[in-house]
């Protein structure tokens, strides 16, 4: 398998919607899922997971400050400091990637999250020419999940 099939892309879409529904009782609405061009969607806070094993590439979740802050409040976390906002996007990326192993199994080896503050620097696709981008809306706020992965075998 050299690339993701549509059914496999749905695994990630389901993981995203499940995350918000399960934790906040409010589902994330999927606004679009598409093959991105060179400029990948990115907001204030990004949590990124790199992959190894039978896949290579990365998966990231990126959201504006207001969404991440609201998420922390819903989780009854009173401290919305910068470190916790970064921690939250890392945890979302970790959960989405980890949940995808229900389908991919341990062929999908995932790293600990890397977190990135600020959206001034573009994230370039490193694996696929055109990664999958999923745009979502939770509450009134937009966020994105990008899946830039390919099978190595």
């Amino acid at each position: 398998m050299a690339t993701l099939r549509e059914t496999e892309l749905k695994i990630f879409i389901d993981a995203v919607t499940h995350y918000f529904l399960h934790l906040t009782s409010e589902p994330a609405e999927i606004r679009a899922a598409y093959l991105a061009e060179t400029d990948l969607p990115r907001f204030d806070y990004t949590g990124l997971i790199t992959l190894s094993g039978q896949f290579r590439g990365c998966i990231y979740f990126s959201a504006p400050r207001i969404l991440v802050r609201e998420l922390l409040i819903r989780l009854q976390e009173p401290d919305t400091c910068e470190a916790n906002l970064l921690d939250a996007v890392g945890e979302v990326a970790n959960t989405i990637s980890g949940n995808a192993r229900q389908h991919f199994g341990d062929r999908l080896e995932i790293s600990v999250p890397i977190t990135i503050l600020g959206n001034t620097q573009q994230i370039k696709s490193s694996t696929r020419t055109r990664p999958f981008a999923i745009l979502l809306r939770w509450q009134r706020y937009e966020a994105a999940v990008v899946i830039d992965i390919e099978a190595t075998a």
Partner: protein
Amino acid sequence: MKLLIVDDSNIIRSRIARIALHPSLRQLSIVGLAKNGIEAVELCQRNMPDVVTMDLTMPEMDGIACIEILIARNPGLNILVVSALSDKVTAIAALKKGARGFLHKPFSDEQLANALLEVSQ
């Protein structure tokens, strides 16, 4: 019973600590918070917990390696794995190393409280 919380995410450690304060879990008292396996091993040696919540994907030392060390030192330790890794192979590996339970992230407050009750009985 003494509880040790192990997770590389500060907000998850904080959330588990908050849930553990629920009256239904009054038999548990938190004796430590660790952000990786190495810290967990040190805190276990120092504080001798009865129950441990254990993340799996962590820097320095991951959860599976940590479970192996903790169970070798204290076979009666009650370890609840709390992880986003949702595949059966991982769950079985953790249970084979000696974990008593497995809870997938994302989890609700009630699911964690029930899982903690189960492993601490």
